[in-house]
């Protein structure tokens, strides 16, 4: 095929001539091309280190009689200390969900709001080799699991409504009603079982005994009494995503304890949702009594069922997988409109499968509203755990929707939304190797850094807020910046946790 290279002829020549020719050849022909392209720069990791360092130094509970070491979920960015007044909430945040009894101060520590911050701390210890970050996360989790659970229900004061008041050293609820409700799936159960196995086990059991109202039908409400066993009046609010959070919890707990009770819990709750699926449309109602389906909530359930299937024995594992497979089929075939409307369909009639309302917005997050990037990150989760091309196409289409989009001037955007958009673009970059997605992620990262951090070590809660408050996803944005940094510099020895838990 190829002709012999010229230098080969020199082997017949004298050895000295050969050496000269070879040296010249080597320097001209062989050495030069080893140079590569310019090393890309990434300013993003230093932002995250600064945030984490500030939280370790100023953001832990040193207040009240007990110095728990928990991370405060809201801070004053000027004083880097607890807030002396209650700031107005970022757009779309309900007062009752914030980390302080309304209208009092925001003095709560809510590990579910800070879950990605904890995951960041573990990652930073791996990246830096410094144990401080990991130890801080471990310390907070251990204290919380050991000390904060309700003595009656073993439920924890975290999630959507509750937190730990670092000044008064007691569980509090933003709304005044002490109800347990997950805010996100809890991805740190393995670590929790390592740190505090008994507290973790008791919580998982408490979730079955006190969150689930009927052990035969698994009827439940996403709200359950924290202080004492109390059955909800209506039992209508059995959202699929919450079922997923419970199933994930029980599956990991089963892996650590081998308690058959936990298998039974999964079995009963799974059956409830198997039965809820419409035989023709495949849709599941948003909750009991509602005729419409919220596909994002069901997709979230599928993600957790997939994870649970890896932890439990047959035949339950296969049933969980079958549930997931059906959900994959249903979700990918829904009439999403990413190309024109830039969004996923948000609600459909369960019986007919017809879309009922609007599509997910690109930028404006709020309570009960998923953004396009948020749903797309669920698709990323399913894609990267299944390889199903339906999800791939949705991920890429969603990434396209953000390519030339920045939030409108008047929008009070959350850091979480930027975090999801960055991670979405990175997922599209990994899949397609099209640089446009990496450039977009980088631009979004730069914008996020400028607009949320503004030179402060802590990011603000929204574009119209000045304080720090993690309910709007500062932790998710920081996680996205780590992911961005690792992608820019092609670092793979340390893996960034998947940014897919805001669901």
């Amino acid at each position, binding site marked *: *095929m*190829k002709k*012999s*290279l010229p*230098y080969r002829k020199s082997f017949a020549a004298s050895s000295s001539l050969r050496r000269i020719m*070879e040296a010249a*050849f*080597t320097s001209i*022909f*062989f*050495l030069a*091309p*080893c*140079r*590569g*392209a*310019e*090393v*890309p720069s990434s300013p993003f990791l230093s932002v995250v280190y600064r945030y984490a360092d500030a939280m370790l130094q100023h953001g832990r509970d040193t207040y009240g009689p007990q110095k728990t070491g928990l991370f405060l979920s809201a801070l004053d960015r000027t004083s880097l200390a607890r807030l002396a007044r209650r700031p107005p909430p970022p757009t779309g945040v309900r007062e009752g969900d914030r980390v302080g009894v309304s209208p009092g101060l925001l003095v709560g520590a809510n590990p579910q709001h800070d879950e990605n911050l904890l995951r960041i701390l573990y990652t930073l210890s791996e990246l830096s080799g410094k144990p401080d970050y990991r130890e801080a996360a471990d310390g907070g989790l251990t204290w919380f699991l050991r000390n904060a659970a309700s003595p009656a229900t073993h439920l924890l004061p975290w999630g959507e409504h509750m937190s730990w008041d670092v000044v008064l050293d007691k569980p509090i609820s933003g709304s005044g009603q002490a109800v347990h409700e997950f805010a996100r799936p809890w991805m740190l159960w393995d670590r929790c079982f390592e740190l505090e196995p008994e507290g973790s086990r008791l919580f998982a059991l408490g979730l079955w005994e006190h969150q689930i109202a009927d052990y035969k039908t698994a009827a439940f409400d996403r709200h359950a009494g924290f202080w004492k066993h109390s059955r909800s009046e209506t039992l209508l609010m059995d959202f699929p995503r919450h079922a997923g959070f419970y199933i994930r919890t029980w599956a990991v707990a089963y892996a650590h304890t081998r308690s058959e009770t936990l298998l039974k819990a999964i079995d009963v709750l799974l059956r409830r949702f198997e039965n809820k699926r419409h035989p023709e449309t495949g849709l599941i109602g948003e909750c009991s009594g509602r005729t419409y389906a919220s596909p994002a909530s069901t997709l979230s359930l599928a993600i957790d069922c*997939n*994870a649970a299937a*890896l932890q439990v024995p*047959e035949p339950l594992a296969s049933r969980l997988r079958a549930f997931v497979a059906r959900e994959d089929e249903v979700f990918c075939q829904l009439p999403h409109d*990413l*190309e024109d409307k830039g969004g996923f369909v948000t609600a459909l009639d369960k019986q007919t499968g017809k879309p009922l309302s609007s599509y997910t917005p690109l930028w404006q997050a709020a309570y009960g509203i998923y953004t396009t990037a948020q749903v797309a990150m669920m698709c990323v*989760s399913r894609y*990267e*755990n*299944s*390889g199903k*091309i339906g999800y*791939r*196409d*949705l991920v*890429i*289409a969603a990434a*396209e929707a953000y390519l030339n989009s920045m939030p409108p001037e008047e929008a009070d955007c959350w850091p979480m939304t930027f975090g999801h958009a960055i991670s979405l673009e*990175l*997922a599209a*970059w*990994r*899949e*397609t*190797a099209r*640089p446009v997605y990496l450039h977009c992620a980088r631009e979004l990262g730069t914008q996020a850094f400028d607009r949320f951090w503004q030179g402060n070590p802590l990011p603000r809660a929204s574009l119209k807020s000045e304080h720090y408050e993690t309910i709007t996803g500062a932790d998710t944005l920081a996680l996205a910046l780590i992911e961005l940094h690792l*992608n820019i510099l*092609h*670092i*793979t*020895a340390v*893996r960034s*946790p*998947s940014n*897919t838990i805001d669901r």
Partner: protein
Amino acid sequence: MSKHRTAAQAAALVLLRITVSASGVGESSFSFLDVVRRYADTMIERGRDIYGPEKSGLLLSALDRRTLGPLAVRPAAPAGIRREDRPGRPWAALNGANPQLDQNLLRVFYTLSEITGDPRYREVADEDLAWFLNNALSPATNLLPWGEHMSWDVILDKPIAGGDLAVHEFARPWVLWDRCFSLAPEASKRFALGLWQHQIADHDTGAFDRHAPYFEHGPVDGKDFPRHAGFYIATWCYAYKYTKDETFLRAIEVILTRFERKRFQKDGTSAATIGPLDCHIAAEVVPEPLASRLRAFAEKEDELIIAELEKDGRRSAPMWQAGYSQGTRASYAMFCIARYEQAGKRAYRDEAIVIADAYLNSLPEEDVDVWPMSFAHAISTLLAAYRWTKSEPYLGQAPKLARMAVETFWQDSPLPRASFKTGHYETITGADSLALALLEVHAATHGLSVAIPSNTIDR
């Protein structure tokens, strides 16, 4: 969404829908052989070097699966892959051909010709090897631009390194020396001599570093990882087989002596070093008394390794997450299988079966960026367990994992992707090993008489 799908994907999708449909349609027509053959055909038609001034015909070690052409950029790296190990210049696009990374693909090509009777797979592999050996040797060291850090840039037509330094380091043992000596005897000999002259720093003590400069002489006494000593010994034994040059016997003897000595630890205990596999191969080729020394060395290695196996059997290794210098449990089974098939020692068989049992009900953990290689090793472990025990669950699980691998790595493309979380083709994560494992499944489920090469070289 259709605008995001390339013509190549669309065409491939048609075939995959027929063959990989989980719905049952076309189920009976599903064939792992077809998947592998389509991969090979695509590499022949779209994945060879037709770029730059010289059309070498080398197989590219990375491709864009959307265009089925060279990558225009450096794509995101699969988890656990270091920057400097990829087939491209630092920070630049991956335009390298690295036959060591594609070694199992070359073996797949030879096997496909045997299975199908079509000679073109063999011819392409032969052309790949012959061109590389005859044209890519360093004029100064006779080392080849392959392995852990180097490759041949198919656009610039030059040897390149993934890092700042152009260093020769094996990535795997090279098991195609028989073919290489047949195709390019002089170049193969020069490489083997170069390995002695320019990789080994001290010809009395055998001191070496697994890194040696490619462009100029400069070996150092540094990190003399034992596995590399095995790769060298296996190279030199073939060189001796075909040349009868006694230099190669001396090279083997010096390195062997080094590790006979290094086996003894400061605390008085002994530890395995090179391992038995390469020494066993060499013992079959070289004359006495060196052959006996190699056999005795391999025996002692077995003794030490089996004692360690009985302690923990590396059971803490991850099931699915591979990375640089981090093998899965199944990758360790590959070593056990290789040694059992070589020497028939029961302890290795038992350990491989224990590992196969662990994969009977195992699927990748959540969010792991799984490599094709991890599936390959799991599948080959299960098939080995089936060969030995005839226990049906192993034969049941291997095709299930193989099917999952086809669905998750190939998807709607004729080429497999580099990992669960990346979309491009890059053989550093073992697409070639997975293709070999699929052929193994095909052979096991179709009672093929053609011997499938052992999937045991990722070590």
